[in-house]
Structures are given as structure tokens and as C-alpha cells.
């Protein structure tokens, strides 16, 4: 969750600067996740898990530098094409979004929770309760419609509700401290040596079409609300493996097994921005953080954003395009520098992350109460992680809860309490079906969707 670090640094910047910083880091994190996957066999973030499968074996064969450069190029191809896809698709979807009324939005929010829970979790009930925890927290504070305090237990601090940034930083950054204290020593893999860096033209040429196919798959997976980059990299890898003539070399250091998931997850990162910008529904945990930042800057994503604040939309897209080229330059010649950063010792890194989180939240709200709340979220996140309850639905619930409730209540005001109004349009029926299917189908596809385990260190 690298995107959290600049979150703290962005508080002092103006809206455009903060947005450019965040989007650059958003793409940067997707690029960067693979470095530790390849060198240490530890995925830098969840989507990078698939990159360990062939990346680490390649590195063990002494081809670490090739794997890094190849995956850098694959990331570039995936992200660049996805950004172009975003430019083409977002304005169209923004037009469609004008057809969305309260019942369609309600169904869309439901779809986001269902697909996120259905695809990412091992246990649907645990994903569902995580969404409920988030939605439940979102209800705390003044009721939007009546202005009456709700679930505040008479506490003045809770009148404004619980800030989603407090929850995000707590659940991701603070949780990491506890997890690290516990797991210290166990998660250390022996790193591989980085050889001389040169561009492996042969591998790039061989896997070029794999990159293109994976980009398409990743982009589509990213556009689906709730599915996100992990699904993109997973599907890209699996489909590349299934059409390959040399299936059995996948998992033993096949360059296409490195290129496919990287192109897939970067394309998904671009795709996830489509529903986020046009409908205000984030496609993944990282886009949820990006949405939180936009809301903090008083920018509300949705179809109106394209007409009213075109400079924000196109500024963001321009930032993505520039970030892409900068990242390619940084990731190919400068990869050695990043490998150095990987060796910052944990006893310095984790206290540093803690201090940045606390100082960032404190300078935003100036309230010790928020810091205590953030610590509590950190502890909650630790227990959730232990019990295998996903935390991203909690964030999504806190972010979308009020909107989801408002759309339900507005729909009922329009229909004067007639619940069948929720299923009255073709779009909403389609979304309801997709939501139910997105939640139930993975139960039956579980064996098919099982994530492969990391190679032995």
C-alpha cells in the first residue's frame, strides 16, 4: 500500500499538485510491486503475487536483470495502452452514467461490494461482514437527510462521522506494524544477486503479443467495479499459460509468465480508473484510496466531473501518460537504485511509516482522537488479517456507505416507498443480476480461481 505514504505528503499541496502526485504514485506502485517479487520472492503488493511465479525462478537462474527489464517494459505497455483505453472509454461511460438514477446507483454500489467480496475473498461470508463493518461505520455521524445525529453514542467527536482517511491509514499502515512485529524473521527470503543490466530484446520480442493480450484482459478486469488489479494479473497469467505451447515451462522461469501478469496488472490499474472517474465507484483498494483523496480535495467523481471540471480529468490523464514514460526510464536504467531501497532495514522503515502516518493524520485534523481511532483501526486490521477477513471492503464501505444509503432513500422518496422501483429499469436489473452472479459464481469457480502458491525460496 505504497500509495499511503505520499498521502501524508500531499496534504500541504494544492489540488492539482496533489492529484498529479497521487496518480503518479498510483502507477508507480503498480510498476514497483514486481521488484521485490522477482528479487526476494515477496510480492510488493497483492497483484504482484503472480509475478513471483516466473520472475523469481528466472532470477534464480541468474536472469534477475532480464526479468526486471522485461517486466518493466511489460508494465509500460500495459499501462500506456490502458491509459489510452481510459481516454477513449471514460467519456463514453460518462455519457451512459447520465442515465443512472438513484436505483441504478444503489445497484451499482451493491455490484461493487459483491464483485470485490466474491472475487477476492476465500470465504464469502467474511467478505460480506467486512462490507457490513464498513457500511456500519459509515452510518455514524449526522444523518444526511434529516440532520439528526445517529449512532454517535453522545460523543461529540463522532458527530462528523469517522474520516475514511483515518480508517485507511489505520487499516493499512498501522496494521502493518503489528503484522511485522509478529512475522519478523519468518518472511525473510534470500535475495538474489542482480547481474549486469542489459535490455533482453529477444524476450521482449517473444512476449510482445503476450503483453498485448494481457493488456486487454487486464483492462477489462480493471473496469469491472470491485475486481481490480489482482484479478487482472491473475487472469492474464492464467490465459497466457493456457494458450501457450510450452505450458509446462510456466512456473519455471518463462519470460512470458513474467510479462503477462505485469502487463495485466498495470492495464487493470488504468481500467480501474474508468468506473472510479465516471461513476465514483473504485475498482480496487488502491483506487479507493485515490477516490478518498479526490473527495478530500472536494472533487466528486461522476459524470458531472467531465463537464464541470474537465481540467481535473484531463490533467489526471496527462499525469498518467507522463508518469508512464518517467517510470519506464526509472525502472529500466535506474533499477539498481530501487534494489538498494529494498534493503532499507525494517527497524528504520516501519517506525518511519508510523511517524509519517501519525503526523499526516494529525496535521489534517489536529485531533488526538483521530490518532487513537487510527490505532484502533490498526488493531482491527491485524485481527481481520489473522481471521482472513479482507479489509478492502471495509474501506469501500466507509467510502460509499452514505452514498449507498442516500441512493436507496432517494429512490424510495421518488417511488413513495415502492421497493419494486429498485428493479424498474433495464440498467438496474442488469446490475442486480451481475451483482448476484459476481458474489455467487466464485463459490463454484473456487477451484478454478485458486491462486497458485509462491515458488519455494
Amino acid at each position: 500500500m505504497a500509495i499511503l505514504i505520499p498521502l501524508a505528503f500531499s496534504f500541504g499541496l494544492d489540488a492539482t499538485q496533489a492529484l498529479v502526485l497521487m496518480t503518479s504514485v498510483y502507477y508507480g506502485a503498480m510498476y514497483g510491486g514486481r521488484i521485490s517479487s522477482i528479487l526476494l520472492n515477496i510480492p510488493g503488493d497483492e497483484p504482484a503475487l503472480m509475478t513471483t511465479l516466473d520472475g523469481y525462478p528466472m532470477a534464480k537462474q541468474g536472469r534477475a536483470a532480464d526479468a526486471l527489464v522485461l517486466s518493466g517494459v511489460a508494465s509500460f505497455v500495459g499501462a500506456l495502452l490502458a491509459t489510452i483505453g481510459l481516454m477513449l472509454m471514460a467519456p463514453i461511460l460518462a455519457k451512459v452514467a447520465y442515465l443512472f438514477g438513484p436505483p441504478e446507483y444503489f445497484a451499482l454500489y451493491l455490484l461493487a461490494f459483491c464483485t470485490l467480496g466474491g472475487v477476492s475473498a476465500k470465504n464469502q461470508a467474511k467478505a460480506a461482514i467486512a462490507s457490513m463493518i464498513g457500511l456500519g461505520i459509515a452510518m455514524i455521524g449526522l444523518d444526511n437527510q434529516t440532520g439528526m445525529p445517529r449512532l454517535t453514542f453522545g460523543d461529540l467527536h463522532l458527530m462528523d462521522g469517522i474520516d475514511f482517511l483515518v480508517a485507511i491509514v489505520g487499516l493499512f499502515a498501522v496494521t502493518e506494524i503489528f503484522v511485522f512485529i509478529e512475522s519478523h524473521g519468518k518472511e525473510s527470503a534470500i535475495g538474489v544477486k542482480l547481474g549486469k543490466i542489459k535490455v533482453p530484446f529477444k524476450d521482449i520480442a517473444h512476449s510482445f503479443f503476450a503483453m498485448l493480450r494481457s493488456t486487454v484482459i487486464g483492462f477489462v478486469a480493471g473496469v469491472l467495479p470491485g475486481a481490480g488489479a489482482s484479478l487482472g494479473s491473475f487472469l492474464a497469467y492464467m490465459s497466457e499459460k493456457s494458450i501457450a505451447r510450452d505450458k509446462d515451462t510456466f512456473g519455471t522461469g518463462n519470460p512470458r509468465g513474467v510479462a503477462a501478469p505485469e502487463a495485466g496488472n498495470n492495464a487493470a490499474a488504468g481500467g480501474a480508473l474508468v468506473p472510479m472517474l465516471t461513476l465514483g465507484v473504485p475498482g480496487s483498494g488502491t483506487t479507493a484510496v485515490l477516490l478518498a483523496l479526490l473527495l478530500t480535495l472536494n472533487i466528486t467523481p461522476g459524470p458531472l466531473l467531465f463537464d464541470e471540471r474537465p481540467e481535473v480529468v484531463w490533467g489526471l490523464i496527462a499525469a498518467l501518460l507522463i508518469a508512464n514514460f518517467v517510470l519506464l526510464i526509472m525502472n529500466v536504467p535506474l533499477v539498481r537504485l530501487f534494489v538498494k531501497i529494498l534493503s532499507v532495514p525494517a527497524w528504520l522503515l516501519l517506525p518511519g511509516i508510523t511517524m509519517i502516518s501519525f503526523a499526516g493524520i494529525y496535521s489534517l485534523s489536529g485531533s488526538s482522537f483521530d490518532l487513537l481511532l487510527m490505532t484502533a483501526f490498526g488493531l482491527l486490521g491485524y485481527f481481520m488479517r489473522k481471521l482472513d477477513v479482507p479489509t478492502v471492503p471495509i474501506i469501500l464501505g466507509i467510502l460509499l456507505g452514505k452514498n449507498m444509503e442516500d441512493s436507496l432513500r432517494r429512490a424510495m422518496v421518488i417511488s413513495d416507498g415502492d421497493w419494486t422501483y429498485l428493479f424498474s429499469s433495464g440498467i438496474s436489473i442488469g446490475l442486480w443480476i451481475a451483482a448476484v452472479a459476481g458474489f455467487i459464481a466464485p463459490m463454484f469457480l473456487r477451484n478454478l480461481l485458486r491462486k497458485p502458491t509462491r515458488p519455494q525460496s
Partner: protein
Amino acid sequence: MLTNDSPGPERPGKFLARRSDRIFGAIMIAIALFYIWSASQTQVSFLSDPVGSKTFPYIVGAVSILCALIFILRPDPDPPWPRLATSAKIAFAVVVLIGFAVSLEPLGFIIPAAVASSLISYQISPKPFNAMAAGVGLSVVLFAIFRYALGLGLAPFGRALVG
């Protein structure tokens, strides 16, 4: 609750096997009931809509209870819980963070940050010199970055120290 000194494979057949999910389910049911009760105490405005302020929290509470019942009836295998010493370390880190949170206002950033990051660093790697250096270095460097490069309103020393 945190500790389970034999984090090995679960022992099926024992009544208490898979208790983590069961305990979690029971706690969630208690919280959800309390949540529903709190929602029922919400003051209703005369300007109400057909759904009202209470329905959505009721739905949230009801679905939570349903999920929690599933955990109790069909629990997953227990995760490996940390040993007592590790749990104590985590608990200590929580105390440090709470202390940091409440001392930031009266004492300012630099001293609480130095103490808190030293203590956390020491929990991760018990080398006193490294921990002290990490604490002092981080607090000064980060303060300088936050204050002078980003212009965030952090006080170096709080009212209790400067007056």
C-alpha cells in the same frame, strides 16, 4: 484471547477446535445487536422519508448477524496465533502508539516521535543503539520535511514544554 501457545496444526474432534471464527462470530453478533439497539435510539425528525434513518443500519446489523452465524456454524481452521511473548510485544506497540497519540498535543512532535519510533524500532529489532538512532533521526528529519518542505502545521515542542 490473543495467545495460543500451541499454534501447530489444529486438532480436529476437539470441541474447541476452530474456535477463532466462533469467538469472532459471537463478538460480531454482540456488536451487531448493540448496533441495532443504538440505531433504534436515533431521534426521528418530523421531516422523514419512507425509508428513514433506521432502516439502513438495521439491514447492516441483520446481514452482519447472518454472516456471524455462518462463522459459528461453519468456522474456518484456526490461524496460527502469536505466542505470549509476541502478543506482549504487539500489546506494547499499541500502548506506545496510544501514548504517542495523546502526547502529541501537549508535548509537540519531536520528543514523542523520537520516543515512540525508538520503542517501535526496538520491538522490531532489539538493538538499542539502532533503535535510538532511528528514533532521533526520524523525528528530526521528518519534522523538518513536514514543517519546512510541506508547510504542515506541526508544533516542534508543545505548550507543556514551551509554555
